[in-house]
């Protein structure tokens, strides 16, 4: 089973929330709450102001804590992409998956069942970009095989270190 995931570059994100909108538009038929959330935080006072934007959704962890935490075994991993999905017919809306998730990704839908990013399951993995990835004007979100994303993050970190820039990424997967 190939493990796909998201790479997010906070240095590129401008907090435009286009990814949120694209996610909602693409998954309109099944989505009742926001699956992707952009948090925009600023700290300090002028002239020493720092800010960061983080676009967070389900990271489709290789060892998904939400899957292990579900008392109804309603959460499973897709064979082809490793995407983590919720079986709505089995979910009881207990929110234990939200408690377990390090990213706070699963959300309670209006139908009383948990919803989360499906990794755009209608889009063939490796052929078409995910909706959030496709819309991002800064290419701050990239999806792909986790090995490729780890390599990409290393390259980005190396490039930025050479320019003495702070380089941090969110991967959601531990490098083995």
């Amino acid at each position, binding site marked *: 089973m190939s493990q796909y995931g998201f790479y997010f570059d906070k240095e590129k994100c401008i907090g435009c929330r286009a990814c949120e909108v694209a996610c909602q538009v693409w998954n309109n038929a099944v989505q009742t709450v926001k699956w992707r959330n952009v948090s925009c935080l600023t700290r300090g006072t002028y002239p020493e102001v720092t800010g960061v*934007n983080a676009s967070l959704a389900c990271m489709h962890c290789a060892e998904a804590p939400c899957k292990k935490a579900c008392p109804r075994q309603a959460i499973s991993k897709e064979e082809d992409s490793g995407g983590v999905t919720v079986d709505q017919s089995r979910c009881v809306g207990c929110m234990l998956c*939200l408690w377990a998730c390090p990213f706070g990704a699963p959300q309670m839908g209006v139908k009383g069942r948990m919803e989360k990013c499906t990794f755009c399951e209608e889009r063939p993995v490796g052929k078409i970009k995910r909706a959030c990835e496709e819309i991002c004007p800064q290419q701050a979100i990239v999806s792909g095989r986790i090995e490729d994303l780890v390599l990409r993050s290393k390259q980005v970190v190396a490039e930025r270190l050479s320019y003495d820039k702070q380089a941090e990424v969110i991967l959601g997967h531990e490098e083995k």
Partner: protein
Amino acid sequence: MDKFTYFWSLIIVASTLFMIGAYKNVFLKIYYIVWVNRRVQEVNGAIDPVVTMPEVSTIINEAVMQNRIKNRSTFLWSRHSLIFFGFMVLFFFDCIYTVFGHYMHHYLHYEYFISGPGRAFLKFCMELSGAVLLLGLTAGLIHRIIFAKQERTLIDIKLIVLLWVVTLTGFLTEAFRLSIEPNDPFISYSFIGGNLAPVLQNLHLSGSNAAAAVWTFHATVTVAFFAYIPFSKFVHIMVAPIGRSITQNGNYGQMKRERITEGLL
């Protein structure tokens, strides 16, 4: 075999299965979640797991008032409330009747809940809560089978049918008992069973053998239902109040995402 020996034998088996299910699907899950949250804190010290204590208002809104369902649909809220309050009240008074009635009568010769006014009170409350439960379950079955095609799943229907059978056979058991004990001084408090008893007599269905058979069937399906709770969707009775309270009705996710974002500053 004496029918109470049969019943308590079933209870022991069912309790064992219940405990196994509760350990596997509730205790181990919560233990894992606590462990994984601590692990996140150890791996990345900048991102503290959000530790929150359940707020009383959240528990009242979610578990008692069930406002989330009310916001979705008044009909669904009415249906679920009938089932919830009917089941909880019936279970509570059943426990009272077992402990303060049967056990205290047996060991301490305490008669208040066996032959005193307490029995009348318990009978009335149990009949009323049973009727409320049966009404909610019947509405749920009709809604799922006929109206809500998107909710018509075998998982949901078989559970509701099981609890419906448990409740219905409870009334039938009481009716059969009263049909062979028509001079029960508290018959008027069993307002459903008491009215069904003459019907059973007119249909020539009453008799000690029939009463024993219905009682045995009721006891078996009740115990089976009890054992099935942690393995079925009814596990939400145990985990939903915990999960929804700890996650502050979903605000926990937002707090976690903000902590992660703060860690990137």
